[in-house]
């Protein structure tokens, strides 16, 4: 069991490094560097630009630059953002909270919606309720999240005089205000995931409801509610939890888009700003951080799965 955990842990680190390396080299292909961006407004001569490039180490061979970046990464230094004149790590520290809060809230929201809908849909299979829920989930899957965000903003502004919050309040300092600020983006991000998970829960429940032990429980005279809650939901949940874990990547992608729709000061908004500012160190840093979050989360989910389902532990 411990060997499994250690083996998986050891895999996370090189995976994240490889992901960062991939993006690092990709971005280095681009013409136009940070120097041309920084000096675009002034009347800098070629000499000044060359000097700046020399100072920033941009004239060193690519492999040397990469080695330097890798070495810095090992000490936790994600690089320096010349566009913002701060260390990437500092910027990430400032912005990461909004992104992680939004992602976790979206995950919680989608599970909170998916479980009741999925279970109810499975238990009342074939009824109008079931049909209605299935139509709802199919439509939720089809609506593009960014368009849903736009429509929510429009509906709330026109119908309810809602205005976009100007300053982001952290969930740790003031949960209620934070939730009031984030509930629309959470809905926009989480609805698609809710639909996916709800369908999965429905199909898992339908499978489990056909099992023999369910028939036995009913034959014993157990109340239907207890049959469902005590026996079927637990067993149906196991693959759902793993799926929810792997789905987190999808949620992170959604968060990156929704942050830009709702102007939330997180990593998603920052990465877009950095892309247009040609601040590539920042972009690579954010990609590394997001990949690290995702890889760690998948690891946690796999470990949780192996704890919850003993059959996995011994394979």
């Amino acid at each position: 069991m411990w060997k499994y955990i250690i083996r998986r842990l050891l895999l996370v680190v090189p995976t994240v490094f490889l992901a960062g390396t991939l993006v690092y080299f990709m971005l280095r292909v681009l013409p136009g560097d940070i120097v041309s961006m920084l000096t675009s407004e002034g009347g800098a001569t070629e000499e000044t630009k060359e000097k700046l490039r020399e100072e920033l180490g941009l004239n060193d061979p690519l492999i040397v630059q990469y080695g330097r970046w890798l070495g810095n990464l090992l000490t936790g230094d994600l690089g320096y953002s010349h566009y913002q004149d701060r260390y990437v790590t500092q910027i990430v520290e400032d912005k990461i909270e909004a992104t992680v809060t939004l992602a976790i809230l979206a995950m919680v929201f989608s599970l909170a919606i998916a479980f009741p809908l999925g279970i109810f849909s499975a238990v009342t299979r074939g009824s109008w309720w079931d049909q209605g829920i299935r139509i709802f989930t199919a439509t939720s899957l089809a609506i593009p999240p960014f368009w849903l965000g736009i429509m929510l903003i429009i509906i709330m502004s026109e119908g309810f005089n809602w205005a976009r919050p100007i300053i982001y309040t952290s969930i740790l300092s003031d949960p209620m205000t934070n939730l009031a600020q984030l509930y629309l983006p959470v809905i926009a991000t989480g609805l698609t995931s809710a639909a996916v998970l709800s369908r999965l829960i429905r199909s898992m429940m339908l499978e489990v409801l056909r099992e023999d032990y369910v028939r036995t429980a009913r034959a014993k005279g157990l109340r239907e509610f207890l049959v469902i809650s005590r026996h079927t939901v637990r067993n149906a949940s196991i693959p759902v939890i793993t799926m929810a874990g792997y789905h987190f990547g999808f949620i992170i992608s959604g968060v990156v888009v929704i942050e830009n729709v709702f102007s939330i000061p997180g990593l998603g908004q920052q990465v877009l700003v950095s892309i247009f500012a040609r601040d590539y160190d920042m972009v690579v840093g954010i990609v590394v951080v997001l990949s690290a979050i995702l890889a760690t989360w998948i690891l946690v989910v796999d470990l949780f799965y192996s704890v919850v389902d003993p059959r996995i532990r011994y394979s």
Partner: protein
Amino acid sequence: MSQGVLAVEQKRMTPLDLARKAKSGFVQLWKRYPSAAVALIIIVVVLFGVIFAELLTPFEPNDRYGTRLGDLMEPAKAKYGDHTHILGTDQLTRDVFTRVLHGGRVSLIVGLVAPTLGIAVGAMVGITGAYFGGYVDLILQRITDTLMAIPTLVLAMAITITFGFNVWIVIIALAVGISPYASRLLRSHVLVIRNAQYVEASKAMGATHLRVIFRHLVPNSWAPWIVLNAVNIGNAIVTEASLSYLGIGIAPPTSTWGNLLINVTTYWRDSPHLVLAPGLAITIVVLCSNMFGDAIRDMLDPRLRGAD
């Protein structure tokens, strides 16, 4: 001809035969999954509309038809000569309906080609890895895991900003995003079928690796392959729209349903169609392709249900 006693004369498939097969396939679909059949009809209608856009509207997508900005914006009341702007015009007085149709071309091309490409590549990687096992499998799996560790949109973003904001780059970016999932699924599928007797027999007869893979493994993996394609079309359309909306997908003047939605919320009061038309187009097409994909999945392999 010395083809042996067991040779059967092959009848050529004429287009009429193909049409008959398509018709009977459709009737079967209608009987089992009527909603999916309706969805297929809607998709075909949209495809026709998008392909024959020139026949449907007299307007050009990038031409301006008003004398001032903000002219003609109300739908169905805006007239230009003898022709009505069915969905009105946008803030630069370009006809919205035409732009939606032309935008649909790009969105649908990306939505259809990107999963096909990505799943083809991913499936071959997965099949190869599963067949050879050992170090080959290990390395291919490492690459797959690395790609899966980067959130799909972020990976696509990195590719488009490196190589350009045009249709082919976006297609490749989305294909790269889908390929690791295809690789995993096909790998687990082939891990099962590689021990089948026909594979063993083929190897015993001296078949090369290439022959076993392409003659036996690939053809017997068509079910998960097709299901993956059908199920991922909607996803590809939405991802492309998201990228284009953010400005890191396909850039104007090429219009896609995503970039038609850039900066249109300010015009909601006067012309809501600017916001609604592209969004509804995406929603309807994705909904129909998802329903069709679900029916395909139910028909071909119910075990894949839930394996999004």
